[in-house]
């Protein structure tokens, strides 16, 4: 672990890129995606089956009791807060070198690790969120109800603040020219966003967190693909992830959140491609403007295409066409998550190991807490290119299939019976396009 000072950092940290997936992997995956898509359209059920939050089988009572026990939740919260405090100590008092664990804590553990955590355990970020606990503490000290704000949160604002701050984070990760070894930029970002979040919570009450805290918004979204969930009355259930996903509330701004997540990840892949790199380098004095514009364009293209495809379903009936994009946006979540798995898989394993190695010495004083991990070769995963490529392709295709099924079920529920099949076509074609774009980026970038 030499603190080499100028390693080029892909997505915040890490220097290796995966090999492109072999061409025939991409072809097989694309063919599978196409076949399944139209197979679903032709063969699947014609009346909606998913029941959202009402679905699922209650967890065994003894297990539910353990999960909901004060001591279990207290332990998880305690761990989360100690971890956050430890990283904050490294960020504030640690040295500005690459081995400062706060970089990997942010770009690897928080940003990428949040996805598997949410899929396995559900919305854990919400439970451990340091800002939520800070807000709760302040409210308790002042004798105020944390749910109580100065104003009522406007429903039309919905998840838009979350989408905005997610975009701000991807900018920090992908565009910020000082990303390598720039502790000050991480400090400044978290200070600003943290302050803004606390102001939001003060004005609107703690409803702000579920709409405006980017990490909670992201975590709660991905948690909808978990096998575990809760009914509206709080009962813990095991359920089909597709039914879980069906329960995602179609809030305003949901399309915005999904667009930022998908657009930014696609941009990250695209940005690493030698073609873009060579081209952008000619304009290196304007690289921030160029990359900001490209990042925004990727997100915008997803937003516009998705909105248009939703409107093209033409279903009106009870909800009116303006609500349609957010009603269908849940179906892009599996596609996004599948692509995120493909994009970050090897990075997460390699840099996760590096994080464990450095987290025991947050202030660069030679603390030996995680010395036991020093012997692990963080790059082992890169010696298995075939396994990486297969996992990527399976993740993308699985995400696509789940997305298509979710969209189908929602469509047969919302659209008039006569148009239920034909109305789905634009959305289906768009999903195929998204998946082909993802495969193309994995294969040719």
């Amino acid at each position, binding site marked *: 672990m030499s603190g080499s000072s100028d390693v080029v950092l892909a997505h915040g940290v890490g220097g290796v890129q995966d090999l492109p997936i072999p061409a025939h992997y991409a072809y097989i995956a694309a063919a599978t995606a196409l076949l*399944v898509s139209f197979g679903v359209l032709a063969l699947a059920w014609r009346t909606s089956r998913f029941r959202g939050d009402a679905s699922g089988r209650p967890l065994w009572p003894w297990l539910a009791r353990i999960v909901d026990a004060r001591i279990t939740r207290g332990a998880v919260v305690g761990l989360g807060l100690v971890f956050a405090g430890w990283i904050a100590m490294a960020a504030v008092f640690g040295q500005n070198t690459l081995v400062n664990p706060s970089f990997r804590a942010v770009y690897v553990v928080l940003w990428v690790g949040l996805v598997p955590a949410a899929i396995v355990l559900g919305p854990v970020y919400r439970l451990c969120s340091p800002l939520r606990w800070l807000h709760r503490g302040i409210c308790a000290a002042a004798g105020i109800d944390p749910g109580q704000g100065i104003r009522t949160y406007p429903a039309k604002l919905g998840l838009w603040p979350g989408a905005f701050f997610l975009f701000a984070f991807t900018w920090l990760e992908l565009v910020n020219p000082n990303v390598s070894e720039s502790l000050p930029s991480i400090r400044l970002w978290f200070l600003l966003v943290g302050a803004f979040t606390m102001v939001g919570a003060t004005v609107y009450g703690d409803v702000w967190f579920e709409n405006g805290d980017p990490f909670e918004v992201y975590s709660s979204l991905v948690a909808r693909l978990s096998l575990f969930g809760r009914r509206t009355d709080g009962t813990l259930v095991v359920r089909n992830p597709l039914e879980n996903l069906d329960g995602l509330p179609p809030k305003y701004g949901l399309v915005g959140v999904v667009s930022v997540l998908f657009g930014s990840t696609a941009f990250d892949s695209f940005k690493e491609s030698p073609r873009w790199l060579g081209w952008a380098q000619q304009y290196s004095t304007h690289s921030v403007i160029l990359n900001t514009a490209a990042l925004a364009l990727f997100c915008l293209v997803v937003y516009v295409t998705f909105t248009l495809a939703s409107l093209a379903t033409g279903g009106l009936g009870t909800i009116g066409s303006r609500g349609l994009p957010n009603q269908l946006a849940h179906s892009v979540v599996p596609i996004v998550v599948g692509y995120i798995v493909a994009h970050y898989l090897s990075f997460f394993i390699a840099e996760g190991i590096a994080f464990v190695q450095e987290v025991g010495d947050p202030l660069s004083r030679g603390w030996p807490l995680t010395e036991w991990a020093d012997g692990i070769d963080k*790059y082992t995963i890169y010696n298995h290119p*075939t396994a990486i490529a297969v996992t990527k392709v399976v993740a993308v295709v699985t995400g696509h299939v789940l997305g298509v099924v979710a969209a189908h079920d929602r469509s047969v529920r919302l659209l008039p019976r006569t148009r239920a099949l034909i109305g789905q076509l634009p959305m289906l074609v768009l999903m195929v396009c998204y998946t082909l774009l993802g495969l193309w980026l994995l294969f040719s970038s």
Partner: protein
Amino acid sequence: MPGLTRLATATSAAAALLGLCLTGCGSTNPTSGAADSAGGTGSGSEQPATISIVEKDGSITPDDGHVIDVDKGQDVQLVVTTDAADEIHVHSIPEHEFEVEAGADSEKLPEFSIDTPGRFIIESHGLNVTLVTLQVG
């Protein structure tokens, strides 16, 4: 919910089939061809890959980051001509850093090889420009 169960079974079967098919095909494709040479010591028999770098008046070629394929374990040699002192960094595992002095004329830098599959960039540290991308595997 028999429909859902059937759907889940079908989906996982499809995924498993896809994975099987891919790994099956994998044994005949070039990616795993590289893995064959990993065990051997055949790297010496191959020609080293030579990459010429010319730096003049603050600009450098190549500067487009284009991809150069090299085999696992194949020797790579950078040949540098420059009118300014610079550092050339190879962001491989482990990293290689070479210092070149002003006035170097077709100077051959020490050979190196990469054993980890992946893509690695070679960069001029002085000009902060990505020169080429090495693709190993």
